[in-house]
């Protein structure tokens, strides 16, 4: 773990070089950190506080204000289910329920094995394909509740192949 901390802090410091000189760049820096680690680790926050000279409390309050930021590592497979209006009208809610049932956890949480994380998002900009589900960057359009087990199985297989 100690090694992890050193590595995370080192990487974070590198990322902050370009943001140090720009004003109002806290959120941009946090985006970059989450992009690299999948969430914003506490260890990174410490470096941000130091380098950008922003109190920890302020960083934390910004992180918790915005839905986009995660404070803990999500599962390896992130399932984003759209509940924007277009998807909602076309049955998005039943798709959410189907995934929750299939994985046995509510949206916003990670499965016990750390493999899947379900999150609800509001419009992914492809409403024409509603209801939409995005899994690790791959988009599924016109999803029905019946597709949930298939999509989960597909990703279980993919991850098994990758040896996760």
């Amino acid at each position, binding site marked *: 773990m100690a090694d992890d901390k050193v590595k995370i802090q080192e990487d974070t410091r590198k990322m902050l070089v370009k943001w140090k000189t720009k*004003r*109002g*760049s*806290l*959120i*941009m820096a*946090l*985006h970059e950190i989450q992009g690299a680690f999948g969430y914003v680790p506490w260890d990174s926050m410490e470096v941000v506080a130091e380098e950008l000279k922003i109190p920890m409390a*302020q960083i934390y*309050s*910004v992180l918790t*204000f*915005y*839905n*986009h*930021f995660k404070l803990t590592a999500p599962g390896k497979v992130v399932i984003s289910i759209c*509940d*924007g*209006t*277009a*998807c*909602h*009208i*076309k049955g998005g809610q039943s798709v959410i329920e189907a995934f929750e049932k299939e994985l046995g956890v509510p949206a916003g949480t990670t499965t016990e094995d750390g493999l899947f994380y379900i999150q609800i*998002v*509001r*419009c*992914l*900009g*492809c*409403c*024409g*394909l*509603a209801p*939409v589900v995005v899994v690790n960057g791959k*988009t599924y*359009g016109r999803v029905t509740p019946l597709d949930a087990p298939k999509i989960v199985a597909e990703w279980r297989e993919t991850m098994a192949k990758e040896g996760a």
Partner: protein
Amino acid sequence: MVELSQEQIEKLKALGRTQKENLIKMGEDFKEKVKNFKASIYTCNATSCHSGGAASVLDAFRESLAATGLESDVRVVCTGCMGLCASGPLARVEIKGKKPVLYQHVTPDMARVIVSEHVVPALKTEGEIKTSDYLKKQELSLDLPFFTKQRKIVLRLLGHSDPEDLGEYIANGGYQGLMKALTMKPEEVLDIIKKSGLRGRGGGGFPTGTKWEMLAKSPLVDGEKFMICNGDEGDPGAYMDSCILGGGSHAVLEGMMIGAYATGATSGWFYIRAEYPLAIQRMELAIKQAKRYGILGRNIFGTDFNFMADIRYGAGAFVCGEETALMSSVEGKRGTPRPRPPFPTQKGLFQKPTAINNVETLANVGPIMVNGPEWFSEVGTATSKGTKVFAITGKVKHSGLVEVPMGTTVGEMVNDIGGGTSSGKPFKAVQTGGPSGGVIPASELHMPLCYEELKKIGSMMGSGGMIVMDQDDSMVEIAKFYLGFTVDESCGKCAPCRIGGYQMLQLMKKIADGKGTKADVAKIKEIGNAMKKASLCGLGQTAPNPVLSTMKFFKNEYDALLIDGNEPDAPAEKEVKACNINTKK
């Protein structure tokens, strides 16, 4: 900015003049290059089509053209949104001298067939091209009202050009608006925008020229004044701005720069939702290209005008679409609104004068400069000029992105452009203005879409989301959905919104569960009216709209759910009948 000597400035100006000439030449070079192509295949690779696999369709087109040795005769173009997103991936084949053909649901296999049955014969043989039934079935008529009833200003180049090719943008008149503006006085530019009647497309409809005049009058603070482009697009289920940024980033940048010249702004910020990676990527590219070719920088095109632009990402907070919250977010802070005045044009980003404009608003500016204010104000109604882009989604047959003249009626939108309901069931209502808007029932099909009419009916133009609902959709459910969204997204700063919204949602849930009473309905109205009056920002002020508007037009649906039946003290309203719009079929 660093002070420069007169000599340095003269040098930069000379460079600027050369850069302008180079740019004009770049457009001519582009025209020269495409002259030699005998055909073009335009393939949409915007968000929807991309998600549907457009990238591999593009590969398939390129590979099969290469295999037939036609790659130098046929231009394969990766374009922005073509509009009919629900039928994507879309590809349009244009053979010189022939009518263009649009294909829907294109797959890589189909792309290969399009090349072998359509493109190759068209280039190698004379006379009619006969394609197989397989392709015929996937042809979409370009004579559909979906296409013919549109009037494109903002979406003009989307689907017809490569958004990453600056030369193509220039060849299509790009940056000519800016070039023209820079030959005028800033006041003259302001005058043109004022005369055009352009109003903000972000929802409020505030006259853009007036906003810019206010900024122009504010003196620089520490040598700075700002323009911000609002690309937060928080309305869930709407994606106009995403596509405009992704397919026409240079046009938005050009609009911002014309505004900056007119107002004396020194730099600009694009605030774009993090959920829109393509929009961000294209805007980053546009800024990079603009810097490289001297469109952004110092002494632009040999004038005294200096301007720089940068991007900031949103982070998933609807309230950040509100301008004061947005500025706080650009500063890297929590996005909480603050009271106005002071208005942003007086005290904005980093406490300096700032004008905030919506993406679509800015995209209109270049064409207005090139074609003149009269050209623009001829389109639309008496008070709502020009066009409006809508994302028409929900239970509609032709779902996608459309641009229509202001004043187009709801009926034309739903029945003609939208082609009726996707289910074939009777149409019930459309919702405009997203979580801040309201419903327009089927009885109001004749209503023209413009700022005033929408407001009158208890909705609003919003940024352009238009959700079509049919007989099966419960109005109570949809109102509850929107309210749930705004309660989730309330920043919690002021009590009317934080507490009122929460209480209202509990009551709505109670009603939806069939446990509500007449007293609950009365209470909701009371809370709603208090929220409208007492909330600090637009989020809380407009959050009750979906509920109040559905209560007004679909009282019967609420009544049916109450345990004590009809609510007595409401004025008797004419019953809204769902009218079947598919009878013509």
